[in-house]
């Protein structure tokens, strides 16, 4: 029998710090300052459409880049010896031991017009790049900060694949490409899905990265929400409404992704 009571502290924690705040956000989103019900906060969303579109677009692009970079890293890593794996995993985690703000500030000095990258390009006689204060800089910052969250879940799924599956596939005549395409890739999809979740969700709601690397010119949903609570406009009810709409879109997105994922899992008979 599973000792269910061990979960009690966690359930209490979730209740206080997850469920209650969400309920407060919902309450704020639908009420006015004097306590009446209203839809006016929600109906203002149209004004912020460009910010919604930009946030989801940049988060999507960042997630795709993370998969493109992270998947091969995770795959190659899983084929290495145990010592190399431990070392590389540590190197992937290493930047996370530094403060997040500090890392983003560092990117600012790399990408600036007079920054490291452009000094290097100019010294090599190449034309300088205008990256800082553009959406590209924000994407670079997000990919850099969130990439470990893509690599690690994919790696942990691939590394657990039973080696005999590879052998069986090869015995049945599959070449390396087919083994990857028909065996490894389908089995690794749940890892990709959790990677997508761990990258996409924080990317949609990011705010410090866009402020520092986007120079305040690339406003994202996180900035907009921050502005309603601690920024230049004090309007927690509107802020809650924006947060709520964002959450709903993200949940819908995740639901669709998971349906897609379940199908894949059935297809490979897991």
């Amino acid at each position, binding site marked *: 029998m599973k000792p269910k009571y061990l979960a009690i502290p966690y359930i209490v924690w979730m209740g206080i710090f997850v469920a209650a705040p969400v309920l407060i956000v919902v309450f704020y989103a639908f009420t006015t300052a004097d306590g009446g019900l209203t839809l006016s906060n929600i109906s203002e969303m149209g004004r912020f459409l460009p910010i919604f579109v930009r946030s989801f677009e940049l988060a999507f692009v960042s997630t795709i880049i993370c998969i493109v970079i992270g998947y091969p890293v995770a795959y190659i890593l899983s084929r290495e010896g145990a010592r190399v794996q431990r070392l590389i995993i540590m190197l992937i985690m290493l930047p996370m031991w530094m403060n997040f703000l500090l890392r983003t500030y560092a990117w600012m000095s790399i990408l600036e017009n007079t920054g490291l990258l452009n000094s290097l390009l100019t010294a090599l006689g190449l034309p300088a790049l205008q990256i800082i204060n553009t959406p590209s800089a924000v994407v670079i910052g997000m990919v850099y900060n969130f990439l470990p969250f893509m690599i690690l879940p994919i790696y942990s799924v691939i590394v657990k694949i039973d080696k005999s599956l590879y052998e069986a596939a090869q015995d049945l005549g599959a070449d390396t490409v087919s083994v990857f395409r028909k065996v490894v890739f389908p089995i690794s999809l749940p890892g990709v899905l959790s990677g997508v979740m761990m990258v996409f969700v924080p990317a949609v709601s990011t705010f410090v990265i866009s402020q520092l690397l986007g120079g305040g010119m690339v406003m994202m949903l996180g900035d907009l929400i921050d502005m309603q609570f601690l920024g230049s*406009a004090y309007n927690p009810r509107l802020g809650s409404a924006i947060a709520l709409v964002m959450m709903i879109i993200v949940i819908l997105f995740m639901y669709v992704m998971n349906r897609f994922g379940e199908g894949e899992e059935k297809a490979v008979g897991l």
Partner: protein
Amino acid sequence: MKKNVSLLVAVCVLISLFAAACSPSPDGKGQVNVYNWGEYIDKEVLSIFEEETGIKINYFEYDSNESLYSLLMLGSADIDVIIPSDYMVARLIDEDMLEPLDFSNIPNFSLIDSRYKGLEYDSNDAYSVAYMAGTVGLIYNSAMIDDEITSWGALFDEQYSGQILMFDNPRDAFGIALKYLGYSQNTENEDEIYEAYDLLLTQKPILQAYVMDQIFDKLESGEAAIGPYYAGDYLFMAESNEDLVFVRPEEGSNFFVDAMCIPKGAKNKTNAEIFIDFMCRTDIALMNMEEIYYASANYEAAEEFSAQLDDGEYEIMFASEAVLADCDVFIHLPANILELYNRLWTDVKK
């Protein structure tokens, strides 16, 4: 067993939280929770205060009047002393969020220059004691810009495209646009505000970035050539880049006073008044001025400090009457205008 351990940990955390919140200082003089702008004090004075009075200071920082206002509204923090700017003092008074001060605890109020008394935001001097003051101006890098700049127009000039920085807060940003158009920074005329909005919209494509304190790095390193900021901070920046020049544009500018107040319901009101009195002392005001280069409201300190400045520096720190005549002091605007500002500012930035 595991559950008991977690429970124990949770209980310990809760107890230590409450204990921290309620614990009196060892010698029984209590404490005071001070909220100030970042980089706006010589932190040495905090330990002097603790040594002299035996009152423990819990010191916190905020980065804008609006975020301070949010902190007060959220009501989650114990706050005894705050140092908002003029218009925010007025708003807090208007919304009944400040305690009237007991000036018998603040004898050093007599050291405050009369030009910082009876100002529009608190005309009876009932709720606030001025701390520091200054003006907003244009800071530019003379190695990157050959022309002599005299007007806010430089911030809207396409020839400096990609090198211009702008304030990342609505009141200062609209204030500059309004001033450039020849309107009051406190206008309640919606057409004028919309005109300023259009100007800010056309400015966005030629901007390098919207910044607050990031301006220090960007101007000092030559990443950007021009931007508006506070006079005291210019003197700080000029220490590391001597090509930087400060001008107060001919259209006039903004004059601000930051004043010490006590929020309604403060738990340590007397200690807060003792702290405010301490900050008004000449030696303390001098230490603070030497650290941050803003003009202290204490006239003895201001006079003593100005002796060590050359004329140019003096004029930047202490604006003359003639300059002040062209400057607006922000006042508290009615709710519908504030709402308009917030909406238009979001529209500029999106």
